[in-house]
């Protein structure tokens, strides 16, 4: 334990002063819904009537009886395990590509960012046209060659991967974060590395990568959180099908909360999700001490 000094006191005052807006927001808006949902998870709560305390029953049900939950878990874990790395790698590669000096760079950056701007409803429709099994852009070409069409959204095997593919395509925001981070790599480090005789690949590996690790940490964590809660595009494109192969955590949760009137059970589901995400986040943060490099420290 550190010794409490005047310095510590000053830091404490300053620190809490700076984060005070967030603390006030937490007290006013954020903490109540969180506590409330924790309470609901131990109740039978249908939103319209008062919650009734049932102890651990919701948790017992989802652990022992809910067969769909197991399928949902499997689907979600696949989505996270494949989708998170895939999305981040794609975003990184795009950022590197667009960090090159080139003509019309602002235009190209804008184009690559577009998928993030198109409202999900419109984007879903576009993908339906592109991936359509009969005359979609891809399958029309495939068919013309006499090959069997690819059931992008209509087979259990393909549906999840197709959604991941679409996720990778809409990485505009992550790409921007990486681009902003690449701007922060000091020119002098590259010069120094060049003087030391490092080649391009070495300069990339020993200078670029470490300097962008803070952004990477941010994206790994937010992508983990985002993918565990993946909802909109799946709801719009497959709504859980075919044969529930794209029934993900948030979709199942939504059904329970708003269609089945089981807000209590949905709350229990989301607290399980919360713990899983928290576990991943803590592990990632712990490991980050080894792989994230902050130029500032």
């Amino acid at each position, binding site marked *: 334990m550190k010794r409490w000094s005047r310095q510590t006191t000053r830091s404490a005052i300053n620190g809490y002063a700076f984060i005070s807006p967030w603390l006030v927001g*937490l007290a006013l808006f954020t903490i109540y819904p969180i506590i409330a949902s924790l309470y609901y998870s131990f109740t039978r709560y249908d939103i319209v009537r008062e919650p009734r305390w049932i102890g651990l029953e919701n948790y017992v049900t989802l652990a022992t009886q809910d067969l769909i939950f197991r399928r949902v878990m499997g689907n979600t874990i696949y989505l996270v395990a494949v989708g998170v790395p895939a999305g981040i790698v794609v975003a990184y590669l795009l950022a590197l590509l667009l960090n090159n000096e080139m003509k019309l760079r602002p235009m190209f950056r804008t184009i690559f960012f577009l998928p993030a701007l198109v409202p999900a409803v419109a984007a879903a*429709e576009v993908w339906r046209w*592109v991936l359509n099994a009969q*005359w979609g852009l891809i399958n029309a070409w495939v068919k013309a060659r006499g090959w069997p069409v690819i059931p992008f959204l209509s087979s259990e095997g393909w549906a999840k991967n197709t959604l991941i593919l679409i996720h990778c395509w809409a990485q505009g*925001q992550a790409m921007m974060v990486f681009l902003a981070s690449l701007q*922060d790599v000091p020119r002098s480090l590259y010069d120094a590395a060049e003087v030391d005789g490092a080649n391009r690949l070495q300069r990339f590996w020993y200078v670029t990568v470490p300097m962008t690790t803070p952004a990477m940490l*941010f994206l790994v964590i937010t992508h983990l959180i985002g993918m565990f809660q993946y909802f909109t595009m799946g709801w719009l494109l497959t709504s859980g099908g075919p044969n529930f192969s794209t029934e993900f955590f948030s979709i199942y949760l939504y059904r329970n909360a708003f269609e089945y009137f089981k807000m209590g059970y949905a709350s229990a589901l989301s607290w399980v999700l919360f713990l899983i995400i928290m576990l991943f*986040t803590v592990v990632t943060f712990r490991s980050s001490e080894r792989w994230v490099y902050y*130029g500032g420290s």
Partner: protein
Amino acid sequence: MTNTAVAMTAEALQAKRHARLARVAGRMLLYVTVITLSFAFALPLLWMFVTALKDDPDVFRLPPVWIPRPIRWQNFAEALTIIPFGMHLLNTLKIAVPVVIGTVLSCSLVAYGFARIDFPGRTFLFFVCLATMMLPFQVRMIPLYIRFSVMGWLNSYRPLIVPAFFGGAYPIFLLRQFFMTIPQELSDAARIDGCSELMIFWRIVLPLAKPSLAVVGLFTFMGSWDNYLGPLIYLNDAKLYPLSVALRGFQSEFWEEHLWQYMMAASATTIAPVIVIFYVAQRTLVEGITVTGIKG
């Protein structure tokens, strides 16, 4: 001696030529890759735009038609008059502009606290901050609604705007990551010069973090522009609906008429300003470096 010199010059020349060739090939490869990928990424917008210009029967023709005939520019005008577009656009801006200002202000302060000041309880509180993102909105929505209802804030923009002035986990985390990369020596030097933390934040860190502030502002703007569920449940007056809610009218399951062209026209119109903002914002981002020459 002369021979070797000549040979060396020739070798050097050849090497130089190779290097230039490699560079040209590299540039070629770069442009080919970027242009090819551009098509894949521009496709949705292209399709949106093409559909927006289509005549009724063309919208659903198989195989899909890429060049509408006739081109119906009036779809745009019609789409924007079916719903009171101007009113909804103004509503969206009434929400989005204060939300961006509030978010950038509050989150940069909070992120500074988490990134640059080593205060007791920092790690724990930072995890609490992250944790607030980990519970899906679906289960937080009802208690939050009840809270705003009790406060008498329903049917106003307050539930959508006010929380933005009290920080949000995602932008705080993003800004924290960027603030962490700014060399600590800069702050230390300023402290020795007698600067307060607020002055360091305002004079040193914020100017250096311009690119990341632009990114956060942009993302926040996009988020607010797109937000559907919040306005849907908080607002009970169609005159207050922002575009995100009003535009759902074009894609309802109850539409039997072929109005995809209108939805696409309206969507294209709504994202156009965001594209412009993005274009400008990412220029700021590039300028950010050239002007400050960060930490060179």
